[in-house]
């Protein structure tokens, strides 16, 4: 009765035929990965348009944008946004980008698509959870977007939703009534989706590796997704309680985050005794690891892709993986460095400064390993390779300012200025996106069976690379001379002489954003017109390249690959005169 052979294969994959199961409520990790990617594309487009509006307003505060007044007559009467509406849009730019782009694209999208394939599995450990995690995230996105269309617009409290502003309700300003509720509910849903996703990634990596796929043989991208999912599991498990307490403060009259005696719009608030700092502690206990949730997958993607184009193994694979784990561990000890100017005990600030400086060590180790791996390689300058090099560049440029900000005495001056804006945009946003771009150009042939256009790709790279430096480098300068952030305009005060710099940044941002349209067009064009891709167009070693492009429904056509080699076998003598050995190739007799 329990004879295995007489039973149907427990996990046999039969491709669904109905439209809904195939493309919408799909259990296939590859479809879910593409859904995440699509969601991130929509979110990044909205986020980018928002950044254009913000930049335009900063440089030309009196400029009328007629469409904007149609969109929100109270937020932008006559097409000029109010200072409050500027903050609302700023909140949405940050929230959409951090959660729905930087978390979704490098981690959820590529991780979903490639983690199971890279370890030789047919699917995720829990396909149903996987589907639920995407659709929960999707609903979270809809709820977030809904705040654009409610009476007061989105909340003005920023993507960090600092209490008590975020907790007290409509008396404190626009968007803090319904808009902030929608924000909190959306983020709580996002937490649930991310927790389900992280659980799935971990279980899949632990349980579903194919024969021969030891931990040491996992590609760096798989390692990065694995470490990231552990970070995400713990981080979102803290943000969710924080959101629940915030929602209770808002709707149930509790006083977790709202102090006593608060008078807003001439009204004494019916709360007492809460601690606004408590919100910041809970938020940043999530928020700092979130930074690594955004960047680690991209580091893993870059470390996987770079050796393919240098045609030599990555240096120090164990040091790289060890650094990832060290970063994951340390990321939980540094959250206080976001709070140096919060009113927290200055002594704690000094304590948080130490691990913050320590965490630069593994980050530096990884950067140096990537950089040194280029040396002596036979570089192939295809578009993914360019984005790898670009990644290293922007990661260093953004990382170096971190050394300064890690020190409370310097951060006290710089914290509320554009210096910080420059820092985190470079090191987290742009670096992570370069990882996504590299991954897209690299894996597109596998995902869609067609190559992307190289000319457009290179054009996209150079415009973006030069563009982001033009946008974010001057911000360091602005910050150093004391240009505060979060202000909607600098017209009538001592910052007026800096307006030309803001104009330069705005024009650069518009052009860099426009350059992304080349990328969008390349995606669409290549999907239908790109040259057909072979099984392994880049001559790479990992498992996804030993199946067809795109892979069949069960990834390897009813078989499980057997792994005999590590992922790093480049620059050696392979079969038929090639210079690499696939992970599935016969073991090397060396």
């Amino acid at each position, binding site marked *: 009765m329990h004879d295995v052979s007489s039973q149907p*294969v427990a996990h046999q994959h039969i491709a669904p035929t109905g439209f809904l199961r195939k493309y919408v409520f799909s259990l296939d990790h590859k479809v879910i990965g593409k859904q995440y990617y699509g969601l991130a594309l929509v979110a990044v487009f909205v986020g980018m348009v928002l950044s254009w509006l913000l930049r335009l307003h900063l440089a030309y505060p009196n400029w009328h944008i007629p469409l904007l007044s149609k969109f929100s007559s109270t937020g932008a009467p006559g097409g000029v946004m109010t200072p409050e509406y500027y903050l609302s849009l700023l909140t949405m730019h940050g929230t959409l980008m951090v959660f729905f782009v930087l978390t979704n694209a490098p981690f959820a999208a590529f991780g979903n698509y490639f983690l199971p394939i890279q370890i030789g599995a047919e699917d995720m450990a829990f396909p149903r959870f996987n589907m639920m995690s995407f659709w929960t995230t999707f609903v979270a996105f809809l709820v977030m977007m809904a705040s654009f269309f409610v009476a007061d617009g989105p909340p003005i409290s920023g993507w960090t939703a600092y209490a008590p502003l975020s907790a007290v309700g409509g008396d404190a300003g626009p968007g803090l009534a319904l808009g902030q509720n929608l924000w909190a509910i959306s983020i709580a849903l996002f937490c649930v989706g991310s927790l389900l996703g992280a659980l799935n990634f971990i279980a899949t990596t632990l*349980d579903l590796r194919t024969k021969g796929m030891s931990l040491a043989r996992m590609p760096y991208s798989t390692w990065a997704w694995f470490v990231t999912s552990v970070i995400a599991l713990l981080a979102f498990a803290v943000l969710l309680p924080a959101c629940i307490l915030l929602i209770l403060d808002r709707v149930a009259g*509790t006083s977790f985050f709202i102090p006593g005696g608060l008078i807003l719009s001439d009204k004494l608030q019916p709360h007492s005794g809460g601690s606004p700092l408590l919100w910041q502690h809970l938020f940043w206990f999530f928020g700092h690891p979130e930074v690594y949730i955004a960047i680690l997958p991209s580091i893993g993607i870059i470390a996987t892709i770079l050796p393919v184009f240098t045609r030599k193994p990555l240096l120090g694979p164990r040091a790289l993986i060890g650094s990832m784990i060290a970063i994951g561990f340390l990321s939980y000890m540094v959250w206080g460095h976001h709070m140096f100017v919060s009113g927290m005990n200055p002594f704690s600030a000094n304590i948080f400064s130490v691990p913050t400086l320590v965490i630069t060590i593994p980050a530096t180790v990884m950067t140096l390993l990537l950089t040194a791996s280029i040396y002596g390689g036979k570089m192939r300058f295809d578009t993914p390779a360019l984005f790898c090099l670009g990644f290293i560049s922007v990661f260093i440029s953004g990382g170096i300012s971190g050394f300064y900000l890690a020190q409370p005495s310097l951060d006290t001056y710089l914290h509320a200025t554009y210096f910080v804006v420059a820092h985190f945009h470079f090191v987290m946003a742009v670096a992570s996106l370069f990882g996504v771009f590299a991954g897209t150009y690299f894996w597109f042939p596998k995902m869609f069976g067609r190559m992307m256009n190289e000319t457009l790709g290179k054009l996209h790279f150079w415009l973006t690379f030069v563009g982001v430096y033009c946008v974010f480098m001057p911000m360091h300068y602005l910050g150093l001379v004391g240009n505060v952030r979060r202000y909607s305009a600098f017209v009538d005060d001592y910052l007026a002489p800096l307006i030309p710099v803001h104009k330069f940044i705005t024009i650069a941002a518009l052009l860099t954003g426009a350059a992304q349209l080349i990328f969008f067009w390349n995606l669409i064009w290549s999907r239908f017109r790109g040259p057909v891709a072979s099984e392994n167009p880049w001559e790479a070693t990992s498992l996804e390249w030993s199946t067809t492009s795109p892979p069949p429904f069960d990834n390897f056509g009813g078989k*499980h690959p057997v792994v005999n080699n590590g992922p790093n076998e480049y620059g050696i003598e392979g079969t038929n005169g090639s210079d690499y050995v696939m992970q599935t190739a016969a073991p090397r007799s060396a």
Partner: protein
Amino acid sequence: MGIDIQEAMHTAGTIGPPGLSDGSRLYTQTHPRPERSETGAWIGIFAIVMSFAAFTSAMIVRQGATPDWVHFELPRLLYVNTLILLTSSLTLGLASKRLRSVAGFSATAPTEKAYSEGMIWLAITLGLGGFFVIGQILAWRVLAAQSFFLSTNPSSSFFYVFTAMHGAHLLGGIAGLAYMIRKLAKTNGTARTTGLPALSVYWHFMDGLWIYLLVLLMVRT
């Protein structure tokens, strides 16, 4: 290059992962142990521990922030509920002992007697779980009758938050239990992977979590 799954399935023994020609076993898609639902349960527990650690630290910080904390006596009913929950863990243990083969522990099928007894214990566990949740709601009512509501004082806020969060997680366990009973009944106990080990791990953890919360609430409120 590659393993044919169908072929591996046919060379498999009666239980355990399919055997391969070199004598090893295919620890990937079809093995019953370590069952992946059990791995999932442990990972889930990891996250839940983190969530409750966050709530706990929020409670400690909030209590230290302002001297407005009002202490109150916990409803006696909570101790009865605790006994009910502890008993449910015991009955779940009795059930899984009888249904072991179902969960993929051994090669033999459960005997008719073990199967029916196991199902009874499972049903009792389900009932006790339900009683616990109802008991918790009654405890809320006792507290509300003393005018301690969610927003009355941070101490009562945290009481309601903790009990509600635990209750919500336990409801998840109850749903899983109900699903499993249905699945077992449908297949007459022949379902190979029912998630029983995973559910046991989760259920016992809910037990331990409640004891922790009870002690915390006793000390703090």
